[in-house]
């Protein structure tokens, strides 16, 4: 009789009986071996602007080959991609694209980077790891768009071949993670700190969900944690919630809330604060934190103007942290 397996990839530590699946829906116990059902089978593959991730301080204005497989190890009630993240592979069409083919496609489409995004790359870990390894050998950069809910050992292994970690910090509240995401906070914080320690370019997204994590005290606590643990130069993106999935009854985040969050973040000492999912004229611009002059002008996902000179502000010469070309 085959044994029960315990998956050690993420903090859920799923016990998977023979023939059963993990909580992510894609890691299965077949013949006593843990198998990845979606390895090599993305359900979505597109050339996106890097700003759509959002990643603002890494190769701005470039396209990135972006992919996901079905499934997720979180179950956020507000998930905007729930039609692929909260589905079984049996329910979603996929195409066979092995890692080497992804690298080829990135080159054919003039993409200097690969992005593992839309759902969480943690659940298609082996596929992401192999693709990142091949991509790096071919001179491509690797971007993980993740909720950071992963154990330290596999995270370290994946970060060795990653250039950018775009990590969601959904709240600085255990209760929010438990009630809204069916997860826990500490592993996420550990992942953010680990990514910074391993010298990845880190950008943090905080989705503001109306009534659930939009209080001034919550926002201040979150910004203070970022300043103390990853530094003032980490770009922070406040993103507007759109009523979706199991939180469709809540109103969308008002733009005033996003502006208030930006004020709190700046007061906490963060240098690069952006607003996303909203039409606001200066929401996505990068300003020099010393002289406050515009260095990169953006609208939507487009770069309108890049005034950086060798990574520095053209007006005062201050170095703007990032990888610019």
């Amino acid at each position, binding site marked *: 009789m085959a*044994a029960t397996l315990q998956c050690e990839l993420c903090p859920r530590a799923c016990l998977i009986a023979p023939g059963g699946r993990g909580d992510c829906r894609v890691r299965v116990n077949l013949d006593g071996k843990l198998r990845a059902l979606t390895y090599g089978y993305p359900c979505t*593959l*597109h050339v996106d602007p890097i700003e759509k991730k959002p990643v603002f301080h890494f190769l701005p204005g470039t396209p990135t080959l972006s992919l996901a497989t079905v499934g997720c190890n979180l179950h956020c009630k507000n998930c905007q991609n729930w039609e692929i993240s909260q589905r079984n592979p049996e329910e979603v069409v996929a195409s066979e694209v092995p890692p080497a083919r992804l690298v080829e496609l990135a080159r054919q*489409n003039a993409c200097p980077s690969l992005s593992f995004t*839309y759902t969480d790359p943690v659940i298609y870990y082996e596929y992401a790891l192999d693709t990142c390894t091949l991509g790096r050998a071919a001179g491509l950069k690797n971007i993980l768009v993740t909720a950071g809910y992963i154990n330290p050992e596999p995270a370290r292994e994946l970060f060795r071949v990653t250039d950018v970690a775009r990590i969601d910090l959904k709240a600085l509240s255990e209760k929010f993670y438990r009630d809204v995401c069916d997860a826990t906070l500490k592993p996420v914080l550990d992942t953010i700190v680990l990514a910074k320690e391993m010298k990845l370019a880190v950008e943090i997204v905080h989705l503001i969900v109306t009534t659930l994590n939009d209080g001034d005290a919550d926002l201040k606590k979150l910004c203070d944690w970022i300043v103390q643990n990853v530094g003032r130069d980490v770009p922070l993106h406040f993103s507007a919630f759109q009523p979706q999935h199991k939180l469709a009854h809540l109103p969308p985040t008002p733009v005033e809330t996003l502006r208030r969050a930006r004020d709190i973040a700046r007061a906490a000492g963060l240098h690069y604060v952006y607003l996303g999912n909203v039409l606001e004229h200066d929401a996505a611009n990068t300003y020099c934190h010393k002289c406050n002059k515009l260095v990169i002008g953006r609208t939507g996902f487009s770069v309108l103007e890049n005034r950086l000179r060798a990574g520095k502000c053209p007006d005062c010469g201050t170095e703007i942290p990032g990888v610019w070309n």
Partner: protein
Amino acid sequence: MELKRRNFLGACGAALLACGAGGWMWLRERAPVRWLIAVRAGRYPGPIRPLDENDLKKPGRWLG
């Protein structure tokens, strides 16, 4: 029939060994085997279509 001390101890030892082996097999079946890196399943269980390389050039509809 008289049970000699040596036979009695032998029977006790055999019974203990049998219990130990049974318990070990029971535990082995139930205690989970820890596993980190999954192997490829080799076959996607859902519907598959060929990659549309023209559709790929457009930005994705999903967030992120």
